[in-house]
């Protein structure tokens, strides 16, 4: 038994958990600030300097609220819903390579919890289980709006998962590996996949918006039609879990996009700096987080710019737009690699 490795992994797991939660917490703050700035407002600025303690205040508020379970709801499933949403959201961070290798006391430790050789499929699996959180919660509420919301969520996620998977298939043709660690390492030195798979990137990005139920694909929770959508009946921290899971998903999908298409922790000109390996690793991690934050900002930017799709437009775009494009992308990539690369 290699105890140092176990201890390292455990500590690292907790760090990742903490970072994920903190980033998600401050995404709520960032969301409100970005929304405010784009609407010529100031946003939250009362709690602490620049309103930086706002997420804490929100959290305290959420915990203090009365816990309501509707009388006609299915109690067990009603509680199970948000739990699944939160758990699956947190589980995804395990396979993402947060950085290169750290050397502590003469030993190399990877800044990735599990380097699965099917890493990217694991992400898909977790996302597809995440639908249950919304579906079960929406059904258990025994409310028509909640049910509508959950049905929309499920059909939307299944439709867009297809296009997302196909975008990734084309990418896998170029990388030849499903392991996120390897995909990142192949992109060393500005060989970012986005330059080789621009169409795939656009498809993946669009589907990521749909998968996280963010605007312009936030039909499952659109207030104007469905009150609160699947979380209409939820209150207190169970509602908090749903909202929080959405922000965690946003963080994780940003991380996946940065990893898969934007070189992960790779930095341009990193070899010319001449720093020690540990410093380089940490610098790479910092750069990785900058990329993630950019994508989180992009998520918010899009949300406060684009209006929501109508349901039939959503399905049209998914099935008649993105999936044929993704198929074309696969064929084009395959043909190119068959004739030009793999001789």
């Amino acid at each position, binding site marked *: 038994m290699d105890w140092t490795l176990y201890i390292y992994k455990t500590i690292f797991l907790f760090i990742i958990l903490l970072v994920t939660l903190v980033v998600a917490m401050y995404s709520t703050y960032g969301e409100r600030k*970005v929304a405010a*700035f*784009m*609407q*010529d*407002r*100031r946003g939250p600025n009362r709690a602490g300097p620049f309103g930086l303690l706002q997420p804490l205040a929100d959290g305290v508020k959420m915990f203090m609220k009365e816990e309501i379970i509707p009388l006609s709801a299915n109690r067990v499933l009603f509680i199970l819903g948000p739990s699944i949403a939160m758990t699956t959201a947190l589980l995804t961070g395990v396979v993402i390579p947060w950085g290169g290798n750290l050397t502590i006391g003469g030993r190399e430790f990877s800044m990735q919890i599990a380097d699965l050789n099917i890493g990217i499929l694991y992400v898909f699996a977790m996302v597809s289980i995440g639908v249950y959180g919304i579906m079960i919660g929406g059904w258990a509420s025994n409310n028509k709006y909640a049910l509508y919301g959950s049905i929309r969520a499920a059909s939307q996620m299944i439709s867009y998962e297809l296009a997302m998977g196909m975008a990734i298939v084309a990418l896998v043709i170029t990388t030849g590996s499903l392991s996120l660690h390897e995909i990142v390492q192949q992109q060393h030195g500005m060989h970012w996949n986005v330059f080789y798979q621009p169409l795939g990137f656009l498809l993946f990005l669009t589907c990521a918006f749909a998968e996280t139920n963010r605007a312009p694909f936030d039909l499952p929770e659109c207030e104007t039609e469905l009150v609160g959508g699947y979380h209409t009946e939820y209150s207190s921290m169970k509602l908090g879990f749903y909202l929080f899971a959405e922000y965690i998903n946003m963080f994780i999908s940003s991380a996946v996009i940065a990893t898969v298409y934007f070189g992960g922790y790779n930095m341009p000109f990193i070899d010319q700096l001449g720093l020690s390996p540990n410093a380089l690793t940490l610098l790479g991690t910092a750069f990785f987080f900058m990329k993630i934050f950019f994508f989180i900002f992009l998520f918010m930017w*899009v949300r406060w710019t684009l209006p929501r799709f109508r349901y039939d437009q959503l399905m049209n775009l998914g099935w008649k737009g993105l999936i044929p494009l993704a198929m074309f992308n696969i064929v084009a990539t395959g043909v190119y690699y068959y004739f030009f690369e793999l001789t």
Partner: protein
Amino acid sequence: MQQLTNRSKVVSDKKMTFLEKIYLPAIVKGMAITLKHFFRKKSTISYPEQTRPFSEIYRGQHVLKRDDLGRERCTACGLCAVACPAEAITMISAERKPGEENLYREEKYASTYEINMLRCIFCGDCEEACPKEAIFLTDRIVASEYKRDPFVYGKDILVEPLDPNKRIDVSKRQTESVLKFKQNKRFAHNK
């Protein structure tokens, strides 16, 4: 049809061109607009610390003025109540007793004078109608209450304090044009 501005656009449901169909150019355009707003000067202010300046002729809570000697100017003529479109003003007149000359300017005064602030629409017609320059609207805001009754303001709130230092300044409302208007021969008794 005659167009009032040239900003209106004719909407049509013609078939979208290819560029419109792939949404992307429109999306980029929209996002550029929001990004421009992101860096723009904010149009809101942090309220309790900063306040927006009131207009010089802001019409807020009324005041019943006293004259220089501290006597109430109101003579309960009822013109304000007649002018009031919301019928918010009521009053009861009384005769000045001997020895009250230092309290009331004229022989007749208002023993009660009430304005229902829930009815009032702050149009300023009362001020316009007043021949004695007794009632003015000020830049004070009517305070909020939990019940309806306190909104009926009596003389205790409306009449300005006796203390010369605590008088309510309405000079802003007596702009040149207003004063000129009031110096009209027809209002000569107003001095």
